[in-house]
């Protein structure tokens, strides 16, 4: 290329090794000034490592970083900031009990002081990029979208001309995503450069001017978002045809495994979080629950597991009314649980894998022997799970925190399957796992269904829901608003039901 203007950011042959693994290898990246450049890649492909290199959080083992055509060496993020590179982290780093002004100024007091000059500068930034910030609002009163704009303002306040946004849309609802994209357009208009990390291909195609795809730690190509389809991008990311969640022939039997009758869970305000949900899951049936997140799915799952009290209604497992049972009794009664947030509910990160094998099955063989934990048997069974479910880790003594998301999830799935539950509650079972683990988990769910397990599948992945479910219900504001046939419905129609735009099919609750 013979561009007259030098590239805003250019990476040449960046290689970064960690003990036992090459995280980045021969990365080539060319980002022009004033564009939104997306970096896409599957989980664990090395996007974050690359961005940490660019932000000075660690030094590359090989390769060069060029900003505006000049080679730079960053020893720390402070160097990167001084050179005009800023990063908006996925997890906000804000102090809730301070104001917007205080948060922005914190750590950059030298730039414009902490008084009127700082305030003027923040107002100026907010106005020129349409961030809509009020300097004196407490951060704790702000929504997620506003908090993100505070983070962006922080970076701009420190004089960044190149912004790295790490998975910025992961925490936003669709509306807020649109607002964010509006802000990005403003930044672009002012001549700033944005590097946008994402795995959401539709969004990337909407917002990016150019795309670089990373696979297994190296750049595999660039794409033009106007001419590339999401499917082509995805296949470039994965390097193979995509797995599909399609199930085989129906295995639904007559015997109900789980019946919910008018299940109601109190919410925070006056409106209940779960509002009179009635449904039935039969043996060999996958009941998919669709819905925009925050419409009562998580509370419903908690209610089935006994983690949240019922305000009304009954939960029946097989022929037993388990409404008053403890979580432990429910688990012993044959409910397996793949929680939505594995770090919060599924794992002990600072405990070895074998103890995580025991978790949730403390009272059952092979984990327990009388009142004692059977270490030997648990360790042996962990080794079996690691083998059979392809959990990649040095051994059962490894701490869970050392595993990638996909391997953690495979361990959880293996652990729950090993107890041969009658009913499996799978909340977002493939969230945050790589494509390989995803297809393994899908296969396991299909096999379990074929063996007659009843499965409640809560997911935000519409293709997964449509592909795996035998019956599909849609939750909106805590209630079941539609029961759909996954064989007939398209993702677009399903999306319409989820947002409440389509209401013509009344809830034909089973």
């Amino acid at each position: 290329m013979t561009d007259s203007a030098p590239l805003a950011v250019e990476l040449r042959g960046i290689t970064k090794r960690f003990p036992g693994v090459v995280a980045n290898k021969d990365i080539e990246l060319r980002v022009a000034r004033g564009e939104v450049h997306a970096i896409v890649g599957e989980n664990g492909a090395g996007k974050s490592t690359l961005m940490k290199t660019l932000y000075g959080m660690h030094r590359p083992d090989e390769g060069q970083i060029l900003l505006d055509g000049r080679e730079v060496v960053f020893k720390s993020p402070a160097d990167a900031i001084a050179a005009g590179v800023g990063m908006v982290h996925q997890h906000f780093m804000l102090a809730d009990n301070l104001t917007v002004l205080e948060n922005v100024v914190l750590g950059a007091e030298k730039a414009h002081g902490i008084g009127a000059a700082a305030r003027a500068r923040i107002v100026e930034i907010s106005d020129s990029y349409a961030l809509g910030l009020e300097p004196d609002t407490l951060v704790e009163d702000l929504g997620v979208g506003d908090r993100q704009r505070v983070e962006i303002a922080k970076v701009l306040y420190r004089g960044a001309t190149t912004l790295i946004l790490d998975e910025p849309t992961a925490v936003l609802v669709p509306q807020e995503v649109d607002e964010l994209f509006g802000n990005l357009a403003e930044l672009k208009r002012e001549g700033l450069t944005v590097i946008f990390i994402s795995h959401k291909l539709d969004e990337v195609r909407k917002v990016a001017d150019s795309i670089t795809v990373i696979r297994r730690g190296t750049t595999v190509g660039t794409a033009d978002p106007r001419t590339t389809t999401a499917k082509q991008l995805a296949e470039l990311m994965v390097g193979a045809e995509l797995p599909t969640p399609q199930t085989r022939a129906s295995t639904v039997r007559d015997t109900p495994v789980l019946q919910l009758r008018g299940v109601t869970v109190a919410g925070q305000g006056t409106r209940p979080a779960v509002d009179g949900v009635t449904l039935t899951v039969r043996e060999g049936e996958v009941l998919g629950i669709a819905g925009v997140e925050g419409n009562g799915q998580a509370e419903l799952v908690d209610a089935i597991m006994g983690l949240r009290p019922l305000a009304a209604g009954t939960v029946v497992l097989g022929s037993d009314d388990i409404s008053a049972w403890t979580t432990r009794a429910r688990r012993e009664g044959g409910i397996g649980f793949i929680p939505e947030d594995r770090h919060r509910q599924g794992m002990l990160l600072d405990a070895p894998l074998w103890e995580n094998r025991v978790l949730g099955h403390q009272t059952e063989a092979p984990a327990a022997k009388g009142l004692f934990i059977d270490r030997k048997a648990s360790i042996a069974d962990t080794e079996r799970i690691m083998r059979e479910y392809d959990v990649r880790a040095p051994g059962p003594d490894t701490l869970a925190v050392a595993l990638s998301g996909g391997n953690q999830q495979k361990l959880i799935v293996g652990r729950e399957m090993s107890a041969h539950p009658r009913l499996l509650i799978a909340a977002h079972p493939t969230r945050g796992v790589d494509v390989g683990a995803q297809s393994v988990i899908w296969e396991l769910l299909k096999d379990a269904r074929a063996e007659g397990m009843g499965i409640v599948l809560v997911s935000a992945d519409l293709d997964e829901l449509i592909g795996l479910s035998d019956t599909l219900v849609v939750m909106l504001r805590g209630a079941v608003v539609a029961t759909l046939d996954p064989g007939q419905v398209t993702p677009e129609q399903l999306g319409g039901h989820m947002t409440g735009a389509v209401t013509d099919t009344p809830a034909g609750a089973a």
Partner: protein
Amino acid sequence: MRAVSRLGQSLLAPALAVVIALVISAAVMLAIGVDPFRALEVMVDFGDTPSQQVTAIVVVLNRAVPLFLAGLAVAIAFRMGLFNIGVEGQYRMATVLSAGAGAAISLPAPLHILVIVVVAMLVGAVWAGIVAVLKVTRGVSEVISSIMLNFIALGLASFLLTGPLRGSEPGASIITTKEIPESGWFPSLNGVLGALGLANPPRQLYGFLLVAVVVGVLVAVLLQRTRFGFDLRATGLSASAASASGVDAKRMVITTMLLSGAVAGLIGLPDLLGSNHTYGTEFTSGLGFLGIAVALLGRNNPVGIAVAALLFAFLDRAAVPLQIAGIPSSVVTIIQGTIVLAVVVANEVSRRIARRQAESGVAVAPPATGDGSTGGGQGPDGGPPPDGPTGTGPALTNASGAAGRTSPTGSTS
């Protein structure tokens, strides 16, 4: 061996902390005009004759027994993520009431001792149980309520001592309870010393040492090997994951506090049954607070607590010789304080290092506060999750890939 290297790793931080604390203490001593080497010399000088040396060892052991029990009581709650700051009040209540009960009854020796021990454990458990009930039913932070109950316990103990349980003559300068009859005295271990060919010192080696060892073993087995212990530790590591696994959080709070209080009830007994035979205004105080330091230093592990208790007992013994040598005995307090500070810092630092190593797929040592309670410890979510909450995505992948964790095939140790 993996186990050996783990042990080495887990010992490194506290050992380093002690060394750093000694260096800081030495600097403080220099600043106040005390020769640190002279002070150290006095502290390690156990006397010239075998009898003096054995006496010194007995003094250290006698002091270590209650410290060990106090550390154990604190650690049981710590392992579940509960901060039982109320050990002080629990053992004071337990000691005054068991002293009263012991003096009031007369039974054959083993039974008499047993009754005193049971009363002490019950009182300690009940006093700690108040904290648990407040937490479970009203959500009162156990830190606040246990501190407040300490004051109530001190007041109540004074009232009991001067009122209903008073045994000393009116006008006596030291007020005590009535003396426990001899059938309620715990036999000393001086016979064992003799059998070992050691000089029989004038001091009695507390027989309660054996009880403490048994309690230590029981607690270790309970925490590490049983289902109950697993539930307890799981709750300490992640309360949300534990309750999703079927642990009843409220019941767990109550049982753990009862257990912690019961052990706390034993703290005063070595002195009560071994030498004083009364509870009085001069009875050893502050053991509950020292227990927190001992538990921290011992990383909430029974073996570590034993080592920490011996170290603190050794330092305590040095107070008198230091004074005799004309060195302020507060040197001991300074060393103890800096040790605690250094250990808290070292635990947190080594926890972070271990976590970082784990996250980048290197062979993993257990994090310093694997029990998730000491120091600042970790929140219920265990710090920033390595690959974070992830979005609602299309059929493809989610989550930000923290590369370097992609294939955790790090070297095995």
